[in-house]
C-alpha cells in the first residue's frame, strides 16, 4: 500500500480534505519497525513525525529513581513524535514498538514548509494535530488524577 | 482469651485542669472493662505504676505553655505510635490561650509575686502546633463516652469517629427550643461542634463553645447576625475567646471583630 492509501485509512487523517491528503502523501513515506525496536529515545532530535498505520508503540519516560516508566501506548491511526512539527524536534519520550509496527513518516521540516506555503493545508493539518493533542491532554489529566488509587 | 499483648496506653498532662483525663475515671461503668483491654503504662493520676514506653496510644491533655513542655511533647511523640489529644487545651490551647492576645509578662507579674521563678512561654498553643497528632478529641471537658469510644475503637482496630456537626442538631434531636430565636440569647451553637449533648440551651443559656468550631462553621455570618441583634462587638469577642478561643475559626472571627471594634472606637 502506498502512503496515500494508508493515510486515507488513518483516524488522524480522517477529516482532512482529499486535496490536503494528497499534498501530505507527496512528502510521506512508509516505514516499519520490528517488535522491540527503539523508534527514538527521549532527548533525541528527530525530523519525522509519524501516523501509525498498524502496530503498537509504547512511550516511556525515564524517571530517576523509578526507572523507565510507560506512560502511554499509541496505536494505529494515531500521531507519534509531534515534537517534530511543533517543537524543536527534541523527543520528549522514548518510543518502542511493542509489536511489528508500520507508520507513515512525514518530514517535519517539509511539512512545516508546506503549511507555511499553503495556509489552507496548514489550517487543516494543525487542526488535526490540535485535536489529537487535546485528546491526549485529557487522557493525561485523567491519568494524573489517579482515579483508581485507594482513597484515604 | 487470646494472649495477644494489650496495647500500652500512656496518659500525659500539660497545662490543663485534669478534667479530661479525669473523664476516663469518670466512666465508672466502663472503667474496669476498658482497663481490662489495655495496659495502663503511664497515668500519673490513676496509678503509681510507671512504664517508660514506648506506648501504642498516648492520650495527651493540656496545652504547651513552657519551654520544657515543648520539649517533653516531642519526646512523648517519639515514644508513641498513636497520639490523641484530648480536650480544648490540647486541641486549641485552652482558656489559658487568652494570654496569646495579652501582654504575657504583665500577666505573670499580676499573678506571681516573684515572676523570676516562673518560666513560661508567651503563648499557650495546641499540641498539634508542636508535633503531628493522629486524632483530636474535642471538648472542655471531653465527653467521656467519646473518650471510651476512641480508646475502644483503637483497641478494636477501627478508626474512631466523632460527629463534626453543629450543636443545633443535638438541640433539635433532644427537643430543646432554640434559645436565640425564642429568647434572643446569644448562642454559639450554630458554629460549635456537637459532643457535649447540647446541654447549655437545655439549661436556658447560650452555648459558649466548649467543643470548638464545627466543621465548616460560618462564624462570620453568625456574628453579623448577633451584632445586628444588639450584642456589642466586645461581648462577641469574649464569647468567641474562651475555652476554644484560639481555634482558628473562632480566633480569626474574634480578631476581625476586635478590629471592627477598635475602628469604631477610634
Amino acid at each position, binding site marked *: 500500500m502506498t502512503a496515500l492509501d494508508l493515510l486515507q485509512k488513518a483516524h488522524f487523517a480522517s477529516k482532512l480534505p482529499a486535496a490536503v491528503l494528497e499534498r501530505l502523501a507527496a512528502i510521506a513515506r512508509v516505514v516499519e519497525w520490528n517488535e522491540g525496536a527503539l523508534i527514538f529515545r527521549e532527548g533525541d532530535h528527530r525530523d519525522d513525525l509519524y501516523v501509525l498505520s498498524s502496530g503498537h508503540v509504547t512511550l516511556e519516560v525515564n524517571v530517576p529513581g523509578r526507572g523507565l516508566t510507560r506512560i502511554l501506548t499509541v496505536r494505529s491511526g494515531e500521531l507519534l513524535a509531534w515534537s517534530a512539527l511543533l517543537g524543536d524536534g527534541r523527543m520528549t519520550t522514548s518510543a518502542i514498538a511493542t509489536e511489528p509496527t508500520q507508520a507513515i513518516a512525514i518530514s517535519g521540516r517539509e511539512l512545516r514548509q508546506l503549511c507555511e506555503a499553503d495556509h489552507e493545508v496548514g489550517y487543516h493539518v494543525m487542526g488535526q494535530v490540535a485535536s489529537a493533542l487535546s485528546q491526549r491532554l485529557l487522557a493525561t489529566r485523567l491519568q494524573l488524577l489517579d482515579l483508581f488509587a485507594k482513597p484515604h | 482469651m487470646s494472649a495477644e499483648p494489650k496495647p500500652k496506653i500512656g496518659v500525659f498532662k500539660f497545662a490543663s485542669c485534669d478534667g479530661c483525663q479525669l473523664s476516663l475515671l469518670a466512666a465508672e461503668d466502663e472503667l474496669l472493662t476498658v482497663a481490662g483491654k489495655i495496659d495502663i503504662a503511664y497515668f500519673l493520676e490513676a496509678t503509681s505504676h510507671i512504664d517508660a514506653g514506648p506506648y501504642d496510644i498516648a492520650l495527651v491533655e493540656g496545652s504547651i505553655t513552657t519551654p520544657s513542655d515543648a520539649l517533653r511533647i516531642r519526646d512523648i511523640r517519639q515514644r508513641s505510635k498513636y497520639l490523641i489529644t484530648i480536650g480544648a487545651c490540647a486541641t486549641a490551647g485552652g482558656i489559658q490561650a487568652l494570654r496569646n492576645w495579652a501582654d504575657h509578662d504583665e500577666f505573670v507579674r499580676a499573678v506571681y509575686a516573684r515572676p523570676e521563678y516562673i518560666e513560661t512561654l508567651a503563648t499557650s498553643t495546641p499540641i498539634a502546633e508542636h508535633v503531628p497528632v493522629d486524632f483530636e478529641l474535642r471538648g472542655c471537658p471531653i465527653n467521656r463516652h467519646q473518650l471510651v469510644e476512641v480508646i475502644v475503637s483503637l483497641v478494636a482496630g477501627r478508626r474512631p469517629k466523632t460527629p463534626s456537626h453543629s450543636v443545633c*442538631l443535638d438541640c*433539635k434531636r433532644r427537643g430543646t427550643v432554640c*434559645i*436565640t430565636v425564642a429568647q434572643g440569647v446569644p448562642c454559639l451553637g450554630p458554629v460549635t461542634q456537637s459532643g457535649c449533648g447540647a446541654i447549655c440551651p437545655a439549661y436556658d443559656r447560650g452555648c459558649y463553645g466548649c467543643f470548638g468550631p464545627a466543621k*465548616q462553621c*460560618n462564624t462570620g455570618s453568625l456574628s453579623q447576625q448577633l451584632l445586628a441583634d444588639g450584642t456589642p462587638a466586645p461581648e462577641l469577642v469574649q464569647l468567641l475567646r474562651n475555652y476554644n478561643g484560639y481555634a482558628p475559626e473562632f480566633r480569626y472571627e474574634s480578631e476581625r471583630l476586635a478590629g471592627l471594634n477598635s475602628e469604631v472606637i477610634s
Partner: protein
Amino acid sequence: MPMNSTSSVFLARSDLQLLIDRLAEQGFEVIGPTISQAAIVYDRIHSVSELPQGWTDRQAPGEYRLERREDDQLFGYVVGPHSWKRYLFPPLTTLTTADLTTNGWQMRAADDNPPKYAFLGVRACELAAIRVQDKVFLEGAYVDPTYQRRRQNAFIVAVNCTQAASTCFCTSMETGPRCRSGFDLALTELPDGFEVEVGTPAGEALLLQLPTTPIAEQQLTDAEQRRQQAVDQITRKMDTEGIRDLLLTQLNHPRWEEVGQRCLSCTNCTMVCPTCFCSSVEEVADLEGQHSERERRWDSCFNLDFSYVSGGPVRRDIRSRYRQWLTHKLASWIDQFGSSGCVGCGRCITWCPVGIDITEEVAALREVGHDNK
C-alpha cells in the same frame, strides 16, 4: 372519609377536657401544645390547663416570641418549633440488635412498642406534612416500619388556624390554612367552645362520647370568619409556577453562592421542617464486642459528612448543601414523591438563626442571571 361541614357540631370549651379524657381512656397518649422554654411545643398533656391559654406567638425571620393574647384562646397561636414528626419519626430509633452467639452473629429487629398517639392541635400545614411523610415512609417501594407502627394508630384532632404568622405561606403551597382532610376530628375555636368537624368514623365514634350540641348558624358564621381571618393575614408568598424545572435548571445560579455566605449550615431548618426525613444509621456497640445495635438518628443534608463517600464529601461547601436542600424540598421532591416537600408552615424561616427566607430565595432564583457579570 371527609364529611362536609354541615355535619359539624358544637363542643363547649368546658367539655374539651372530656375529649382528652376519652382519648386517654382509649389508651391514647395525648400530645398537645404546651408552653416550655419560652415557646409553644408539643408534649404529653393530661389536662386543658396545660394548653397555652391566652398565649400567642409572634414570628419573623429568625425570631419567635411568646406574647399574651387579649383573650383566653387555647389555640390562639400558629406553629412552634416542634412538629409532629418527632412522634411519628422519632429523633432516635434503635432499628436492630445483633448478638454474638456460639453460632455467630444473630440479628433481629429491635423491640418497638410505641404508644398510641393522639395529636391535639394539628394545623392544616401539619396535616399536609404528615401526608408528605406518609408518601415517603409508607407509599414508596419500601415501608418504614418505625413510622408505620406509629402512624397507623395515631388519632388526629386538627385545629383550624384563626390567625397567621408573618412567616406563614401555606396558601402558596395550597396546604392551608383550612383543614380539609387527614384528620379524625377538626376544631375551630370559638369564644366559648369549638366547631367540631368529623373526618373519619373513628372521629365520629369519639365524638359520640362527648356532650356536643347542634351548632348555631351564627356560630358557623363566626367560625368561618375566624378561619377567613387567618387567610387574610397570610402575606408571604411563594410563586410555585414551574418551580421544579426552574430550580433544576438553575443549579449554577449565582444566588446559591450568595445564600451560602449567609447560611450557617447549622441544620436548624431541616430539623424544624415537618417533612425533612434524612437520617443516619450508626453503630452502637458494647465494649465486649458481644452486642451491637443499629441506631437511626435524625441527620441533615447540611452536614459536611452527610454526603461522605470514600475519598471525601460530595457537597464540599455550604453553597452546594443549601442548594441540595432547597432543590430537593421544592423540586426533586416532586419527581420522587409526586408533591412538593414544602407545606408552607414557615418554620425554616422563623427558626433560621440568621433568618434566611425560603420564599425570598426562590424569588431571587427566579431572577435568571440577575448577576452574571
